[in-house]
């Protein structure tokens, strides 16, 4: 065993995936001490996930490829120690929650890692339950994995790694589907544990870290304490500075005609567990509505109801014109051999419209390529082009910023705002910065059985008379006429994290 004083020591690491044209990591050197909290920032595809995999030993053991340099974690050289040997010392939360789940029972899923690392049998379930409580999902203990929402599943996966009480916690975009209720993810790690968190929402992690590493094209451009890093980001990569969602200026587009109206809508997947009850909502042409709420509050269900993909158990949904819906992880839902054909599928094979939509999302040059040859970000833009090509009267996007870096989010805001006048747009999101940048008003849902957390005034200056709170389990906030948005993060307590914590504790 090599002796080293650092918890992590990476020396001149270069790594190239098999058959890749260039290196994913190029000359990376860094050290991390026990107890350090590090934010790993950088654009999509810059090598953040690969670096985390190298620290977990998965690169090169699981992925193969060309590996040069060395990575030492807690004295173990990852070239000689397999990932399973590092488990327990290192715990990794991957980006895709659904693809790291082994069991179909929540509690057993959390217990799986504890069993593997040899935890005494009597301690396994208590530690699993404590971890679920830390991740804010103690209530899911007896549930099936298939029954929980995407955000809840991400919390279950977070609990799975927290349960191991590792010395090094690697988090790959842990907040992509998480509501703000969980608060500071980084501080959930145990005392003395080092945390490295790759994140595309800097405002969620920067307040909690000591240090920032910025990676681009496989190289470390910045490795500095937080304050110094903030100055560097301000100069070199301002899009990555944590932002508070400033009130948006009046859009200047008055409310158009009614596109969709929900009247006393109730929906339940299980009779004993209603998701939405007695809900009322109106959507008008020209507006963009951000649909927010904690994990499991029924946002995706509502999105599917308004687009007609689900039918309500009670109540009525009146809709005019065409509705299109972009799913979560849309890049996984492409079926054609060519990008152009994929986009043309929803418009009766009209290739001119398909090419126009591809140009709109900046992928005109990819029209003849196979969708699965594109990067994940490009695939998601293809999926966006698929729904934009249909020129819908009602466009619903479910978590469209998941995995997007700040610059791409900015592009998405511009794209949605540019086409907003011709349709009603609903954006399901956990990202308050994105919501404030793109939306005219916000609709908040509460988890069934809980009260709505606070009224959320609209950011739109027009008249929105029909958004009214109907029921505690699926409330939408009243929208005062002619009001402007307050700072959303201020409401969340970002200016005063302790106040936020008190707020959540109280509720």
């Amino acid at each position, binding site marked *: 065993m090599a002796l080293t004083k650092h918890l992590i020591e990476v020396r001149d690491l270069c790594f190239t995936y098999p058959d890749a044209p260039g290196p994913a990591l190029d000359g990376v050197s860094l050290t991390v001490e026990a107890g350090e909290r590090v934010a790993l920032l950088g654009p999509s595809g810059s090598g953040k996930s690969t670096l985390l995999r190298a620290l*977990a030993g*998965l690169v090169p*053991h*699981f992925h193969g490829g060309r590996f040069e340099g060395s990575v030492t974690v807690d004295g173990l050289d990852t070239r000689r120690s397999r*990932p*399973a*040997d590092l*488990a*327990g010392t*290192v*715990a*990794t939360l*991957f980006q*895709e929650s*659904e*693809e*790291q*789940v*082994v*069991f*179909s*029972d929540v509690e*057993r899923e959390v*217990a*799986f*890692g*504890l*069993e*593997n*690392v*040899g*935890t*005494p*049998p*009597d301690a*396994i*379930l208590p530690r699993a339950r404590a971890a679920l409580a830390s991740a804010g999902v103690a209530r899911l203990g007896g549930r099936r994995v*298939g029954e929980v929402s995407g955000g809840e599943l991400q919390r279950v996966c977070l609990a*799975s790694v927290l349960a*191991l009480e590792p010395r090094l916690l690697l988090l790959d975009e842990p907040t992509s589907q998480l509501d703000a209720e969980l608060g500071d993810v980084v501080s959930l790690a145990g005392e003395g544990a080092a945390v490295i968190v790759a994140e595309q929402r800097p405002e969620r992690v920067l307040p909690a870290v000591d240090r920032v590493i910025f990676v681009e094209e496989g190289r470390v451009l910045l490795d500095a304490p937080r304050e110094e890093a903030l100055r560097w980001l301000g100069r070199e990569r301002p899009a990555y500075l944590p932002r508070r969602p400033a009130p948006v200026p009046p859009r200047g587009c008055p409310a158009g005609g009614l596109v969709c109206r929900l009247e006393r809508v109730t929906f339940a997947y299980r009779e004993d567990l209603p998701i939405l009850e007695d809900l009322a909502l109106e959507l008008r042409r020209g507006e963009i509505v951000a649909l927010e709420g904690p994990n499991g509050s029924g946002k995706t269900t509502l999105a*599917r109801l308004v*687009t007609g*993909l689900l039918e309500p158990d009670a109540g009525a949904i009146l809709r005019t014109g065409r509705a*299109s*819906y*972009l*799913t979560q992880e*849309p890049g*996984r*839902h*492409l*079926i054609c051999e060519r990008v152009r054909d994929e986009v043309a*599928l*929803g418009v009766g094979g009209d290739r001119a419209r398909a090419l126009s939509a591809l140009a709109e999302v900046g992928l005109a040059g990819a029209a003849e390529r196979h969708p*699965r040859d594109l990067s994940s970000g490009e695939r998601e833009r293809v*999926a966006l082009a*698929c*729904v934009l090509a*249909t020129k819908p009267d009602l466009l*619903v996007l479910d978590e469209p910023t998941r995995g997007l870096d700040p610059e791409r989010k900015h592009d998405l805001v511009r794209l949605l705002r540019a086409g907003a006048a011709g349709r009603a747009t609903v954006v399901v999101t956990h990202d308050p910065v994105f919501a404030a940048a793109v939306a005219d008003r916000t609709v908040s849902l509460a988890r069934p059985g809980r009260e709505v957390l606070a009224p959320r005034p609209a950011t739109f200056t027009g008249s929105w008379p029909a958004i009214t709170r109907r029921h505690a389990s699926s409330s939408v906030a009243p929208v005062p006429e002619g009001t402007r948005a307050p700072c959303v993060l201020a409401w969340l307590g970002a200016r005063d994290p302790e106040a936020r914590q008190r707020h959540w504790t109280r509720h």
Partner: protein
Amino acid sequence: MRPAAAAGLLAALAVTALLAGRTESVAAIAAGLLVACLLAPRRWRSVYLLGALVPAAGVLVITPFVETIGSHPLWNGPVVPVLGHLDVTTEELADGLFQALRLAAVTLAFAAYALLLDHDDLLASARLARRSALTVALATRLLPTLERDAAGLVLALRGRGVEVTGVRGRARLLSPLLATSLERGLNVAEAMEARGFGRPGSTRVPPPAWRVRDRLALIAAPLAIGAGALWL
């Protein structure tokens, strides 16, 4: 009931149906298993029930035409090359019904296993050969996972205004489903390795205590097989 005990009982009922010689005994077993399957949520059970009952119906229809037993003809048909003289007798119908019920009972036992039992608990019950048991559990979940992926694809396409209809429409989903399934398999394997799977010295969650009905199920299983072999 603990899944291991329930699985043992279901397996015993399937064996009993194979051993029993009376149509009414096999019919009773198949009916009991059908009722058990109907306890599963409606959205899941239809596929499994179709998979169990359609082949049984096929056996019921085909058997009288391919068997040549009995002396009480109900219908005399033509002579068909290869198959010979087509006819239907009372005995052939009875035997077709018996074989169909037997097949239905066995497939319904598997359907009940897939629909009602917690495969995770079954895995936990396997104290030995954990790797193999986990492989079996993950393989068992392949069909529901593919079903969920297919539903996701159909939903995404409907969201763009594309309805998936007919055999050709569904066939287009096969290639992306296969690709998605392979990607998921790799990702799950990576996550399992990162979580220490395969490391020596692993431990297990203590199993829940056996209850009276679990013991009764285990006692009933060999008794059912014995009864099937001797009396039913």
